[in-house]
């Protein structure tokens, strides 16, 4: 066993013991919360690879318990900044030139420092034409995001260790498939280590929202972008945690909450591409009364058929129709065994009823995460895309509620759901089937 393996095993054992001691007298849900907290602290202690792994867990309620998902969402991806010299060295290796040769100004004091990358402010030396949108003039403020030297190697080495440990001990973990998780994580983190992938997605989002003056996506400076460095327009604004200041500046939080939720529904229902990591740090409210998206590390993709099925599930939710929600969930890959269908339908109905009861929690989070928890309880496999979408919707709802507590996220979905359903109803093959059925029903009535 390598020194790193011993360290990983040691940290997990220490926190497992701590959790066990603290939960000796606790009840079951509390015990899960205690262990979830210990896992989070262990992940933070073990560094970048585990911090990223924790972030992945935080968007996967389909694989992990509610307590662990909530705890991992609180993971702080903030590490001590590296000296500017180390970051400058990466820039020189990538471009063969110093930051001063590439930019008009470069700020040695970092704006942010996270497990994979460190971010510095700079200004453009010359005008740049982005892929989409207006030309960025010389002197325009940008941010330079640089992969921390050694972080890629450390993360990949840790992943290899984690894979070895999972292959050896993974069978002891009953709640999830450790090997599958590590494989998925491996793909996700390799994408994130190549900053050009994120830049390309940002361009696509900028194009998708090209006619929307309320949504801002930072434009990419491709001539100053490589695998380990991405340069993008600097967005100034308030995080969702600094809304008091935004309110003082006259920002209309309520309108922005509705607009932000609607914009997300558009991503899901119209474009089939959505920002799947919209926690408060990745979302700004700007002084121009707009919403700015940052950090496109995790993006969900949906086909037209999947979007139609999601619209049907949401329609089932809006009309308290568990049968419809289940039928279309099946098309999304949630296969309920015949012997469990009645139970699941009944429990889903109860979940919907509790949502619509006077005084009930009128939250998508309550329904979405409750539905996932119920499926897990019955041992029903949930496709990863389904879990990611449910978590993203719940997170968007949380973000929107921090701006406007009374927002009804399902209400914002209604126009999109209606449009998708009517589009789907107009399909010739569907019409053909429906008209035949209608004619047969009419004839039955006539001859009755």
């Amino acid at each position, binding site marked *: 066993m390598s020194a790193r393996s011993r360290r990983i095993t040691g940290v997990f054992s220490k926190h497992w013991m701590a959790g066990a001691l603290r939960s000796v007298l606790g009840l079951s849900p509390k015990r899960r919360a205690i262990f979830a907290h210990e896992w989070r602290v262990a992940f933070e202690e073990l560094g970048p690879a585990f911090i990223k792994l924790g972030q992945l867990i935080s968007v996967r309620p389909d694989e992990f318990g509610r307590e662990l998902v909530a705890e991992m969402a609180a993971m702080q991806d903030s590490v001590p900044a590296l000296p500017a010299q180390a970051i400058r060295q990466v820039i020189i290796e990538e471009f063969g030139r110093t930051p001063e040769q590439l930019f008009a100004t470069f700020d040695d004091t970092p704006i942010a420092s996270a497990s994979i990358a460190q971010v510095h402010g700079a200004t453009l030396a010359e005008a740049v034409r982005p892929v989409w949108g207006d030309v960025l003039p010389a002197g325009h403020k940008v941010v330079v995001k640089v992969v921390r030297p050694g972080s890629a190697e450390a993360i990949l080495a840790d992943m290899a260790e984690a894979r070895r440990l999972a292959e050896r001990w993974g069978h002891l973990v009953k709640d999830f498939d450790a090997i599958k998780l590590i494989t998925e994580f491996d793909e996700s983190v390799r994408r994130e280590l190549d900053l050009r992938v994120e830049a390309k997605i940002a361009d696509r989002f900028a194009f998708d929202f090209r006619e929307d003056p309320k949504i801002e996506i930072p434009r990419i400076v491709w001539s100053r972008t490589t695998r380990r460095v991405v340069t993008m327009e600097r967005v100034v604004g308030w995080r969702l945690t600094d809304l008091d200041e935004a309110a003082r500046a006259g920002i209309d939080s309520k309108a922005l909450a509705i607009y932000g939720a609607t914009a997300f529904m558009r991503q899901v229902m119209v474009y089939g591409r959505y920002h799947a990591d919209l926690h408060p740090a990745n979302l700004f409210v700007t002084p121009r009364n707009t919403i700015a998206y940052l950090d496109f590390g995790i993006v969900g993709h949906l086909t037209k058929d999947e979007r139609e099925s999601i619209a049907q599930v949401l329609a089932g939710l809006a009309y308290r129709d568990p049968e419809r929600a289940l039928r279309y969930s099946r098309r999304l890959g949630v296969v309920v065994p015949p012997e469990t269908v009645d139970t699941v339908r009944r429990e889903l109905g109860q979940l919907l009823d509790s949502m619509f009861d006077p005084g009930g929690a009128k939250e998508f989070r309550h329904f979405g995460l409750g539905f996932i928890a119920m499926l897990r309880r019955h041992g029903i496999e949930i496709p990863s895309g389904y879990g990611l979408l449910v978590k993203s919707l719940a997170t968007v709802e949380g973000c929107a509620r921090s701006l406007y507590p009374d927002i009804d996220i399902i*209400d914002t979905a209604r126009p999109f759901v209606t449009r998708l359903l009517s589009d789907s109803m107009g399909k010739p093959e569907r019409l053909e089937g429906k008209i035949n059925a209608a004619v047969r029903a009419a004839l039955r009535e006539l001859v009755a």
Partner: protein
Amino acid sequence: MAGTDDVMRFFALWMLTHETADEGLKAAIKRGEDTGPGGMEGGPDAFVDGLAAMVQQEKEQLKADLAAGGVERPSADEQKLALEELRFEVAEMRGRMDALTGALETVVAKLDAAPSARA
């Protein structure tokens, strides 16, 4: 004469069905327009009413398009969308070219920094 009566009866039935359906549709459109966009939350019936109102809007638009000399609007929209997608693809390629130009400048800068290697 009985055969003629049957045919007449059939068309009368057809006309009655049509008339009844038409009245039903008009009533659904009226209800959908009265309740407005938020009214579709009232259940499947309200959804159908709302949908009927939307179809009515689309029909009025179609009539306007026909009166204006054709039904070019949807295809014009599709064309615009396809052109925009194409423009985006070209713009993306320009972005890649910018990145490649940057990479070439990097190679030149590295060669300049190591004159002995070039010699």
